[in-house]
């Protein structure tokens, strides 16, 4: 279900008939796959301009995040997407944020897919997320030309 691809910008332009579009002079959008390649409820990882990025289709909405947990480096693409228990009174169990939380496959840390923030904010952990959109059936991920996400270590 989950696969890994290497996508270079040049190959991208050829195979997907896409162009790098200049979001700003410091960022660029890169097509990584066709929308149909990542079905709802699945994810795939791509090597994009020096970063390993996990693209997730959660209920038809796409998210892109660095494929390395900021805690211990586990591949987040092997994790699971779901909701989480909301803060509540003792012995009350209120489920929420369905489809917008990813749980790390190793130690089970949870991250918000949109912001990248750990659900337990006290950890101070945040996974790098990337703007993503679809256009003409392609999934476009926006990465900075240079950035701290190019370093090997995760982010805090």
């Amino acid at each position: 279900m989950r696969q890994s691809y290497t996508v270079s910008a040049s190959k991208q332009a050829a195979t997907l008939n896409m162009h790098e579009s200049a979001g700003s002079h410091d960022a660029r959008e890169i097509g990584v796959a066709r929308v149909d390649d990542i079905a709802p409820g699945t994810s795939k990882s791509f090597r994009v301009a020096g970063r390993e990025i996990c693209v997730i289709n959660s209920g038809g909405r796409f998210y892109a995040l660095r494929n390395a947990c900021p805690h211990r480096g586990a591949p987040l693409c092997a994790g699971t997407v779901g909701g989480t228990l909301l803060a509540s009174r003792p012995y009350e169990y209120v489920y929420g944020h369905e489809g917008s939380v990813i749980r790390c496959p190793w130690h089970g840390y949870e991250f918000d897919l949109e912001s990248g923030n750990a659900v337990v904010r006290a950890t101070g952990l945040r996974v790098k997320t990337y703007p993503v959109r679809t256009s003409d059936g392609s999934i476009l991920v926006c990465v900075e030309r240079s950035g701290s996400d190019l370093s090997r270590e995760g982010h805090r």
Partner: protein
Amino acid sequence: MTGEPDQTARLTETESQDVTGQAATRARIVDCDVHPHFAEGIADLMPFLPRRWKERIAGSDHSRTWAARFPGSAYAIPGNTIYTNPAGAMRRDAVHDGRLPASDPAFVAEQLLDRHGIDRAILLGGNVFGLAALPDASLATALASAYNEWVTERWLLTDKRYRASILVAPQDPTAAVKEVERLHDRNGMVQIHMPLGDRLLGEPQFHPIYEAAASFGLPVCIHPNATEGMYWRAPNVAGGPPTYYLEWVTLYSQAFAPHLTSLICHGVFEQYPRLRVVLAEAGFAWLPDLLWRLNRYWTNMRADMPNLTRLPSEYVRQSVRFTTQPFPETSKKFIRKICSMVWADTTLLFSSDYPHWDFDDPVRVLAPLEQPVRDRILTDNASELYGERL
């Protein structure tokens, strides 16, 4: 004890073989806590069990039948059936081809050994920790024997980087000694795995096991049993049974302080100075407080144990080793302090606990430590402990 080959001499021998190129390169990273799992539950042991036990375990047709699904119809090794980890008890990426985590030696070799540069993985059976909670000592002994054959055939023979632990049933120490005598010189066996029950390890009925272990140069390893607080014969949880997995998993390291204290106070390390005991997944940050108390109280209460000739803490430094996982996750400053307080350069052995959810990576978790201590924990302490068996 006499007759045990000197560990230092063994190491020297291994190194000299390396120089001549006749032996494999000395291990660089040793992972001292890896858990192979049965692919089909207790049925994996069937080929290795005598007929009597096959029938008792799975019904008279020797197979996995309806019997396994009804209470009172088939045996199971006691395990954790009442506390559930809401975040998952296994690494999700350890599921491979729909097979259970760590049930395929080839995939474990790829995902754990190759990917993390681990040269030796010491196996402790993931399905057998609760063995000591079985009230039937004969059955427990038979299961231990069958497990030892299973791990040899399914794991040791498939990859030369695996090492195994001789499983014994502490319910019957005489039978346990026989099992150690049967397997002590089998290639790949590096230690004895003694599941914990409700009796503390210093008690005299266990001493024959320590005598055998010391004479064969086999460390005795103890590990959490996944049955703490759940069975009469399992280790207790002080205070009473917790409600949630989080409480249970946080607290199960409690059991190790009484066992360690018992070994010291019964004079086991004085009687068997060659014996080494490995506390796996027991934690170690609790150790300084325990040793301060023991040292302090022993100085004026030694009348109960006049055979002790040294401070309790000195026995620990000499004879006891601790695996690292779950390694403390706090500031570099605190980690270094804790490690120096427990003599990490002598006592700690790296472990990953693969494939469990709280897996530790050999590079990341030890990063706060200085290189010489890291090397000791990743390699040298294990080499010195296990000698040529490694």
